[in-house]
């Protein structure tokens, strides 16, 4: 489990909102990838909720720039199990690359949901100046970090830990102030796959 460090100057309200968004985004990504029945997914979500809360490692607000660092860690065996369920394969058939791929994709999906939450938050406030709220959020960057060498994967004494890091870098003042006032109860997020037709 990663160290639980919250380094922030932002208000408790904004921090709590973002924290919940991260948790909910991860849970949605987890559920989608595990593809169980709704009941199975819910059971899984509840079991995971506490763990996810510990994965939010850093929330910083300084000089009108909001930075969120959100680590998600899987041990290699748990990543293999995760991938096996997602791919409907035997755990023994999941090699390291596939395990990495599954954790990376999980992170990618969580970012997708997180962006939606932040977009929805604007809509909830009805800020007419923010007609395209998602475009105000700088690209969420997903990186798979290797803490020991700044490259891909972290090796530890206990084996291999797969760690994804999500950075959100928000500089827009309206977005920042919005985060103070919105709770998840204001928000609704679609189940994915919103389509723009040309």
């Amino acid at each position, binding site marked *: 489990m990663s160290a639980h460090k919250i380094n922030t100057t932002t208000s408790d309200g904004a921090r709590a909102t973002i924290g919940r968004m991260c948790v909910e985004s991860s849970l*949605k*990504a987890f559920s*989608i*990838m595990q*593809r169980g029945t709704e009941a199975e997914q819910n059971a899984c979500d509840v079991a995971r909720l506490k763990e996810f809360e510990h994965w939010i490692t850093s929330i910083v607000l300084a000089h009108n720039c909001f930075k969120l660092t959100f680590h998600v860690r899987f041990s290699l065996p748990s990543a293999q199990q995760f*991938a096996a369920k*997602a*791919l*409907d394969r035997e755990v023994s058939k999941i090699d390291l*690359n*596939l395990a990495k*791929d*599954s954790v*990376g*994709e999980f992170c*990618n*999906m969580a*970012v*997708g*949901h997180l*962006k*939606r939450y932040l977009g929805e938050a604007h809509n909830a406030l009805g800020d007419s100046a923010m007609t*395209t709220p*998602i*475009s105000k959020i700088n*690209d*969420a960057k997903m990186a798979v970090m290797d803490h020991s060498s700044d490259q891909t994967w972290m090796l530890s004494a206990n084996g291999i830990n797969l760690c994804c890091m999500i950075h959100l870098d928000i500089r827009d003042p309206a977005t920042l102030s919005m985060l103070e006032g919105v709770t998840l109860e204001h928000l609704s997020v679609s*189940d*994915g*796959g*919103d*389509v*723009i*037709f*040309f």
Partner: protein
Amino acid sequence: MPHKVLIADDSELLRNQLMKDLENGGFQVLAAANGGEGILLAKENPDVAVIVADFNMPDIDGLTMIERIYQMRGKKDIPALVLSTESSQHIVERGRMVGIRAWMTKPFNAAKMVKALHAVIAARKEVA
């Protein structure tokens, strides 16, 4: 005869999920692990009815892949859909300029994906 869909995504996991979902949705699936492979498969399969491409791929991005496929003889009208967590206005606009028919944000929903593909194929038939 099922429609043939070419999918390109560097994530094996996503490719597998897409393949299952699209096969269940009645499509025949060709899967590429990157943009270069996608171009080759498009070249080798004249009967591709629709393309689904991830935007971020390690060799070339999905839009560049589609652009190159559109440069091949007889491929310009194949409807294409990009699947991505990216939804920045300028990137989506680039997609429109390239000529793709739809942009879908990840995480995707299988039913919506199948519906969208049928819609863009039907729209192409109407134009033809």
